């Protein structure tokens, strides 16, 4: 109510009730809509329609760091708020993936591991060389435990994707997501703010009769793009496909192997209560069968919230609890070995695929077990069906969260809040291999458990006051602590051939296919532990002048236990910003609704690893203790990011046209480096802080809304981001740069003057005339170093374009996104050449060889040196680096809402949805947005990665 303290929130269907007197002014506002004022008359029921205003946020409250709500126009930094709809319409199993292309500069790269996998989130470029580059994930003001138990960081294979926190959130629980893009926006998070923050606000509890919302999402999935195979030439050796022409064309084994996937994502919620007590309950369930046969992802997600108002709302108490479990079976992971895709792709053309498919095991009477049935016994690839049934990786993840908060409104100006959240995560990963799996004639046991925990608490004292109409103050002082612990237990037993000699088992195992520790003579058990505590004091103040100009200051001091033993555990992180709302100072005409300039500067930190300052001895086999191989880092300092940004927010033509532009520059110094030491001095490495990584860029969003007729509305939005990364300085001690990742024949290397993501490759050597140099065997000579910088795995430009149309109750939405520039590497394509199964290798044979210097060379001999047969082959990777520029139809939705189907405001909306439908432009043979893992340096690299899938299906939403 205008000029009053009363107010309320609508429920999902827009209903609300509020006590009012005639003559009062009701102010209705909602994110994404224009605010409306209605004078109350004697009538009891008011119906009001708000006009959509997709990106006008000028008067809207925005969730900022620590969950402090501020007026959008008062902000001095870039942020973008997206409604819950943006993740609950065309759903993805990992909700962050639904934000792809929807926010300028938000780069999301899902791991190529299917459902249950993690996604790399990057805001404003890579800043940290050896540290974390992922933004903080914050739910209702409290940082979420975002641990990852396992990620791929080698092309060898057999590694896995341990998932991330975002995939545990039910999209239907979300009210809005605010992206704090830069360090300035996140500055109040101090020591962990460098990479920005994703602030998730969950749906609030509502008063009124219980409302139920049901949502059901069913999609099918198919590979978006597959490699091209040759099907004409067979195999001589049941290994490679370099043999004679086949009498009839072979099958496309990859196509036969992959299946149509399906995902059922259902959720239901109930919300209601009275003025003093409200509750919210939701349950979400996902069942996903991926395109890999026998792959399965299941998830259950319970969420509950309770809210009590006491003493006339002077005291508000809320409580929330969440439980999530996930079960992933046969999750894909990049790499050569232990990857069923390798077998399906490389299977010798013309051999009896169906036999091995239908009979992946055969009975061995002498051993009294079933043994793997496969065409050969090489390590490169095994029977994919054996792998999917007898080498099954299974991960069971569980997560519990309990949180509560209390808010005491001491006066209109002053309030105090306290919050506490305990999170516990468990993962049980089992990857037992049956006897006769490669290298393990008697099988292998691998059984790992991970326990993680985070306890967060804070107290905030808030003060808001408007002084005599001219000045306003919005200030908060507070303190927080975060305690994180991680534990792991791993059991590992390997079985060689078994027989018993002198009563002792020879080969480390008693019986095949019994996966319990006692079955193994020696079981390599190990434990891991980490603990960290971060204590903080912080304060922020925002001073406003007549709602025309604002100054925003934050200060935070952090004490981190990871800095113990350094002599200085305390670090200070300040930020300052200001804005001017020019249209309030001068008359810019009635077509200008907002014209705001803003600027900010901040210094923030990045997370630091534990124990480095206090390295101890480790205990190895036979009681041997081992001194630390690295010198303890006694003067460790956290990374420091200096960030500056300038921006413009403007709205024109009755807020129909909105423009937001931000330019930024960040410099991240005190980078953490490992420097090799002469081993003779007693250490392998020592650590230093040095370097300067710079990111400069521009983010722009423009949106426009038009009502053609009262029934027909069009909204379009374009977002664009440019980021230029430069390694200004490394350290004089690393003259050859830092190698972040090696893929065999290629590596990602950082050098002074270069940029993060530069990829260096081996290549075919040429003489001065440009002719390819040949060896005495007549095949191309390959450089013996990765000495050619061929490009960068990151693109400088990313963009997205949304369009939505509404005609009566029909709606259509389209999202195209893409990136310009950058490279991707495909070791898959390379290996297909080396094994003679690629279409390229078939075409070359059709042509009588590969043309080199105008002469034809035998195809097999050529690819034998240019391409890799093995994960550690050093090949001419330069031949397999592709332009990553691509644009795709990311999302499409067409639907209809049946209004008042079962009564007033009891609606059903039905839509057909699609994701990743097709490429509008792409040069690489695979999806260039491929990613092996979250690890720095493993995006844009395809090593037998699961193909990206397109999905399409039906979405139903029902309110009653």
């Amino acid at each position, binding site marked *: 109510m205008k000029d009053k303290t009363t107010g309320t929130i609508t429920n999902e269907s827009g209903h609300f009730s509020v006590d009012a007197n005639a003559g009062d002014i009701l102010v209705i506002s909602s994110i994404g809509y224009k605010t409306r004022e209605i004078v109350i008359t004697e009538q009891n029921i008011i119906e009001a329609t708000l006009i959509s205003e997709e990106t006008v946020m000028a008067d809207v409250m925005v969730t900022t760091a620590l969950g402090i709500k501020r007026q959008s126009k008062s902000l001095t930094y870039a942020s973008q708020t997206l409604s819950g709809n943006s993740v609950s319409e065309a759903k993805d199993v990992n909700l962050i993936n639904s934000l792809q292309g929807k926010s300028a500069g938000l780069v999301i790269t899902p791991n190529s591991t299917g459902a249950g996998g993690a996604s790399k989130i990057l805001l404003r470029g890579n800043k940290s060389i050896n540290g974390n580059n992922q933004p903080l994930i914050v739910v209702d003001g409290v940082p979420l435990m975002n641990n990852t138990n396992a990620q791929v960081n080698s092309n060898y294979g057999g590694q896995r994707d341990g998932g991330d926190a975002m995939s545990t959130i039910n999209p239907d629980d979300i009210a809005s997501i605010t992206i704090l893009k830069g360090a300035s926006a996140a500055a109040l998070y101090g020591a962990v703010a460098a990479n920005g923050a994703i602030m998730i606000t969950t749906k609030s509890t509502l008063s009124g009769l219980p409302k139920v919302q049901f949502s059901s999402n069913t999609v099918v999935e198919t590979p978006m793009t597959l490699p091209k195979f040759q099907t004409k030439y067979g195999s001589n050796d049941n290994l490679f496909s370099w043999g004679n022409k086949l009498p009839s064309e072979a099958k496309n084994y990859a196509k036969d192997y992959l299946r149509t996937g399906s995902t059922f994502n259902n959720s239901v919620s109930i919300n209601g209560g009275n003025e003093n007590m409200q509750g919210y309950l939701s349950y979400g369930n996902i069942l996903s069968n991926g395109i890999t046969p026998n792959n399965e992802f299941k998830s259950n997600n319970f969420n509950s919230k309770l809210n009590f108002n006491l003493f006339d709302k002077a005291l508000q108490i809320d409580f929330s609890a969440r439980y999530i479990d996930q079960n992933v079976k046969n999750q894909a992971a990049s790499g050569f070995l232990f990857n069923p895709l390798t077998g399906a792709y490389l299977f010798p053309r013309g051999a009896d695929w169906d036999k091995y498919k239908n009979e992946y095991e055969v009975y061995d009477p002498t051993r009294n077990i079933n043994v793997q049935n496969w065409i050969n016994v090489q390590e490169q690839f095994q029977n994919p069906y054996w792998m999917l049934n007898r080498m099954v990786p299974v991960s069971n993840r569980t997560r519990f969260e309990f949180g509560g908060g209390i808010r005491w409104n001491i006066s209109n100006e002053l309030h105090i809040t306290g919050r506490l959240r305990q999170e516990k995560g468990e993962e049980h990963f089992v990857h037992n291999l049956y006897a006769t799996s490669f290298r393990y004639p008697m099988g292998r046991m691998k059984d790992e458990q991970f326990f993680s925990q985070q306890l967060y608490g804070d107290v905030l004292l808030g003060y808001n006051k408007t002084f005599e109409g001219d000045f306003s103050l919005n200030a908060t002082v507070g303190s927080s602590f975060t305690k994180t612990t991680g534990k792991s237990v791993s059991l590992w037993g390997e079985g060689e051939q078994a027989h018993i000699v002198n009563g002792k088992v020879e080969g480390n195992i008693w019986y095949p296919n019994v996966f319990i520790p006692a079955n193994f003579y020696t079981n390599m058990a190990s434990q891991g532990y980490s603990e960290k505590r971060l204590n903080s*004091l912080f304060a922020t103040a925002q001073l406003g002048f007549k709602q025309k100009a604002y100054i925003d200051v934050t200060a935070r001091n952090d004490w981190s236990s990871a800095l113990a033993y350094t002599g200085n555990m305390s670090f200070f992180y300040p930020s300052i910003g200001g804005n001017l709302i020019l249209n309030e100072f001068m008359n810019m005409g009635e077509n200008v609704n907002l014209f705001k300039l803003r600027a900010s500067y901040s210094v923030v930190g990045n997370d630091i690893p534990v124990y480095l300052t206090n390295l101890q001895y480790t205990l190895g086999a036979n009681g041997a203790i081992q001194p630390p191989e690295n010198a303890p880092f006694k003067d460790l300092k956290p990374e420091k990011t200096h960030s500056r940004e300038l921006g413009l927010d403007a709205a024109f033509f009755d807020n129909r046209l909105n423009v937001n532009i931000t330019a930024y520059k960040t410099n991240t110094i005190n980078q953490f480096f490992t420097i*090799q030491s002469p081993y003779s001095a007693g250490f392998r490495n020592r650590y230093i802080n040095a370097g300067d990584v710079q990111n400069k860029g521009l983010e722009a969003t423009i949106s426009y809304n038009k009502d053609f007729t009262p029934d027909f509305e069009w909204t379009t939005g374009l977002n664009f981001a440019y980021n230029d990364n430069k390694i200004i300085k490394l350290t004089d001690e690393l003259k050859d740069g830092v190698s972040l990742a090696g893929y065999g024949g290629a590596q990602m290397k950082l050098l002074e003057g270069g940029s993060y993501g530069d990829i260096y490759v081996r290549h075919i050597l040429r003489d001065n005339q440009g002719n390819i140099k040949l060896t005495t065997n007549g095949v191309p000579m390959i450089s013996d170093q990765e000495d050619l910088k061929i490009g960068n795995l990151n693109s400088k430009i990313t963009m997205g374009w949304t369009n939505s149309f509404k005609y009566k109750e029909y709606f259509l939405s389209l999202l195209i996104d893409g990136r310009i520039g950058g490279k991707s590497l495909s070791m898959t394509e390379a290996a297909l050449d080396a094994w003679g199964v690629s279409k390229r290798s078939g075409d070359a044979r059709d042509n009588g060889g590969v043309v080199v210097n105008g002469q034809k060379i035998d195809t097999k001999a050529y690819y034998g040196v240019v391409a890799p047969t093995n994960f550690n082959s050093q090949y001419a990777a330069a031949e397999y680096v592709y332009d990553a520029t691509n644009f795709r139809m990311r999302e499409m939705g067409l639907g209809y809402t049946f209004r008042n189907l079962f009564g007033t405001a009891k609606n059903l909306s039905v839509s057909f949805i699609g994701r990743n439908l097709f490429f509008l432009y792409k040069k690489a043979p695979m999806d260039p947005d491929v990613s092996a893992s979250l690890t720095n340096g493993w995006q844009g690299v395809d090593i037998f990665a699961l193909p990206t899938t397109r999905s399409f299906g039906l979405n139903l939403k029902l309110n009653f």
Partner: protein
Amino acid sequence: MRQLTAFILALLVLNSCTKKFGEINTNPYEVNPANLTIEAQLVKPMAYVYAPHQNMFQFYTNLSVDLFSGYFMTPHNFGGNGNADYRLNRGFCGGVYENYYLNIFNITSKMIPICEDKKLTDYAAVTRIVQTYATIVATDSYGPISFKSVVERSPNIYYDSQKDIYTQLFKDVEQSASELKDFLASNPSADRIAGLAKFDQWCNGDHSLWIKIANTLKLRMAIRLSKVDAALAKTKAEEAVAAGVLTDADPDVVIDKNQSNELTRMFDWGDCGVNASLVTILTGYGDPRLPLYITQNTGDVKNAQGNVIVAKGTQYLGVRAGCTLPNKPNAWENYSRATVKYTTPLPVMKVAEIYFLRAEGALRGWNMGGTAKNFYEQGIRTSIKNEYKYLSSSLSNPQAIADATIAQYINGELGRSQNNYVDPADASNNYAAMNTLSVKWDDAASNEQKLQRIITQKWLANFPISNEAWAEFRRTGYPKLYPVKNNLSDGTIDTNKQIRRLIYSNVEYNTNKTELDKGIGILGGPDNGGTQVWWDTNAGVSNF
């Protein structure tokens, strides 16, 4: 306002408290040696003589010294990155350096003075013997290495000449032997005597065995210097034998691998094969140790057309050195492998070796307490018997060896010459036999021929201790090893003389360049595989 101040003060007190941070930042699953008995720190160096970790094991010698010893050969070449074709890889060549410094010498050099301070002279003495053993491997591989500066914990790590290192090593083993003798003479308590067994993986706490090992190492070093400093060699060798070296009353010194014989892994990974030289010498002479050392081919060998040319388990097949083999998978992966099992112990020092050392000393006219012929024949007998004792259990049908069979072998009746090498997968790798001297001792033969017999048999007996094999091959030229087929050393290594040393690790280049350059100056030649180390003189010309 007072409330606010109080609130802020309370927060300050609450959250700037960092009292427990030291405890939090200490990993509970790691250990502090201060809380443990001193023996805990002495275990590792002894174990790492055969690195008890599969990756370190491969890196330590399996990618370098093992190939040049004539025992092993990689059945592919790591995409052109391996050492097999003499295009030396600084990373792979740095394995010896890495293991020696990080896992052995840095610990021994620190612990010896600590043990001495604590009057644990037997611990110090034993640790010094282990250090000597490992230092010989390191200096023999590279030439000059950092020794004195590490012992002295100098801030500046400088290089010593191999001559200075050998001089110091003689002193060290002599000191160890005398300290151990004094220790036993001091009537130590039973508890003190038992202490050694707490960390002694080599001799299970047997002090007198350690004295013999010290003397044997002295004899080994003396023989190594026989060409560069004959007078010193004679003195040291005679002193060592007089003081008491290992005899066949003593056991071979082995490390019990307790289910983790890492050599098995090298073959499991397809990254190690058996050298053509070893296979053809074993098969050609009808060596009774053949099935104990190596197996027949582990899989079908197929030709380019995919036809099986050698069925699984039918032939002993070795891999010729330096053939620029294609990446795995390839045909050579299925050749022979070492017979070792997970449980097979790995040898540190074999008693048989000592007889061959004494045989050579006697041949050189030193007082070794016997004749060359007797030592030679006893060496063969001891080797075969001991191998059957401890390797036979690795066979699927364990066997005993008859004395008569051994005698037949010694008399040269089981085979007369090395076999020609025939590579079924690629005939261009074939090579004619190089060793045609029979096993049977011939008093009328030249000293050179006698030495060839002694060293060839020592080489066979020492399998798989590749440092001794390679060092003695370099010193004497025996047994004659097949040269590499392709020499990609850019002319730095002579194909017929073969590789003479490992190149220094890239770690030293990156981190200690100034001192390394001085070290290369001491080496007296460029840092490549063709430069000879100090004791490597007159190679291929004459041994006398």
